């Protein structure tokens, strides 16, 4: 398959996109639960419990998808590394070489252990210690992705800069996407239950998320520039290579997300402070929810592009 002048390995791209998105949603959801929802929940206990249950379900589902897609990803990479067909490469010889002797295999092994720890913690999520450990471990699960990609193979001191930038980029993107999913759940609860306490819970949570959102956008943007500088290197490479063109598309989608986020932040969020139960306030909650869903759709498109970018040779190698 050829797309934007880049040869695309279909199954690998799809499984990467699914894995990245599921992992990001897991981490972002756990952060949202810790930072936003729990901190804002004192005013509206029952609604907070509903949101807590729903976000926990999202965390379990995304963990399961992340683990399953992660294992399929390892098998696809093993086949590609061995140079054999998928069927021929599924031998204990090839798999043990990949798992034990390559960076990708070792990182996958570590990440599988992290996923198991997260599952254990989610099972005991009523204990604060388990919640904290689940959150910390899921940050590791997302951050470790940097070592599976281009950043993991950049040589020398530049490699340290690249890994640092990529780790922060992954974490910030995860906080954004996972937070949006949780925010939509919370807004939908508050739309159905218009009591002042619930509406003020939604307002508090939205405001906290939007403060976190500004930090996240700054980090995504700054680290994205560092990554692009290392992997693309020039305006020319950005324009003439498949990798560069996909990156342009990714930035366009990012800009669209930013516009929506700005509308949410400066136009809709202040309206949540209007009298509870009033029509404009209900309308604002409804629009926030819908806008956040559009942002999620754009974010998933970005993850599909990320699925592709990682399988391509970076633009800088072509020139």
């Amino acid at each position, binding site marked *: 398959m050829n797309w934007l002048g880049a040869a695309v390995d279909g199954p690998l791209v799809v499984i990467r996109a699914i894995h990245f998105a599921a992992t990001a949603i897991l981490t972002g959801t756990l952060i949202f639960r810790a930072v936003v929802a729990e901190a804002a929940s004192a005013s509206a206990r029952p609604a907070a419990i509903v949101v807590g249950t729903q976000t926990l379900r999202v965390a379990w589902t995304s963990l399961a998808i992340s683990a399953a897609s992660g294992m399929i990803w390892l098998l696809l990479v093993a086949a590609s590394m061995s140079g054999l067909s998928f069927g021929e490469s599924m031998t204990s010889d090839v798999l043990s070489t990949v798992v034990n002797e*390559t960076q990708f295999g070792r990182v996958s092994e570590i990440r599988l252990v992290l996923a198991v720890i997260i599952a254990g913690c989610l099972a005991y999520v009523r204990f604060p210690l388990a919640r904290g450990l689940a959150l910390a471990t899921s940050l590791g699960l997302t951050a470790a992705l940097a070592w599976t990609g281009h950043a993991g193979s950049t*040589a020398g001191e530049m490699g340290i800069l690249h890994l640092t930038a990529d780790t922060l980029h992954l974490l910030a993107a995860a906080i954004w996407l996972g937070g949006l999913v949780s925010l939509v759940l919370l807004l939908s609860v508050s739309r159905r239950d218009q009591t002042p306490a619930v509406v003020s819970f939604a307002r508090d949570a939205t405001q906290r998320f939007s403060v976190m959102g500004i930090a996240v956008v700054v980090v995504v943007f700054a680290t994205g520039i560092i990554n692009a500088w290392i992997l693309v290197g020039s305006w020319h490479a950005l324009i003439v290579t498949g990798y560069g063109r996909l990156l342009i598309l990714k930035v366009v989608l990012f800009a669209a997300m930013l516009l929506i986020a700005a509308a949410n932040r400066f136009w809709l969020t202040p309206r949540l402070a209007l009298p509870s139960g009033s029509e404009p306030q209900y309308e604002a909650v409804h629009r926030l929810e819908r806008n956040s869903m559009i942002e999620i759709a754009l974010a998933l498109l970005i993850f599909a592009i990320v699925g592709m970018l990682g399988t391509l040779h970076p633009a800088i190698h072509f020139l």
Partner: protein
Amino acid sequence: MRRTTLAGLIPLLLLLATGEASAHAFLDHAEPRVGNTVATAPREVTLWFTQKLEPAFSTITVTNSAGQRVDTGKARVSGSQMTVSLRSGGAGTYHVTWRVLSVDAHTTDGSFSFQVSK
């Protein structure tokens, strides 16, 4: 709004979907240098790449002018550098063929030659 956003992307995709990038440039440099002539048969060949390599899936094959393999087999990898020892193979054109896996799981291959004058 989602529909209009997506519709707006289509012309952009068409605009972007032209041409195809080619020519991989993963081999940074080699010793003996690519295409050069050296006085005596070298004891080893070293290749420097643009990315870190996975030893388990990276190989170099070196043949002399008679087409016989003169490398000793297992290449040594250190970061983005890979070395293979050679047996004496006489004068003539040596061919170096490499297939390497970088740490980010991309496989690339290529070949070059150098001359040995005596």
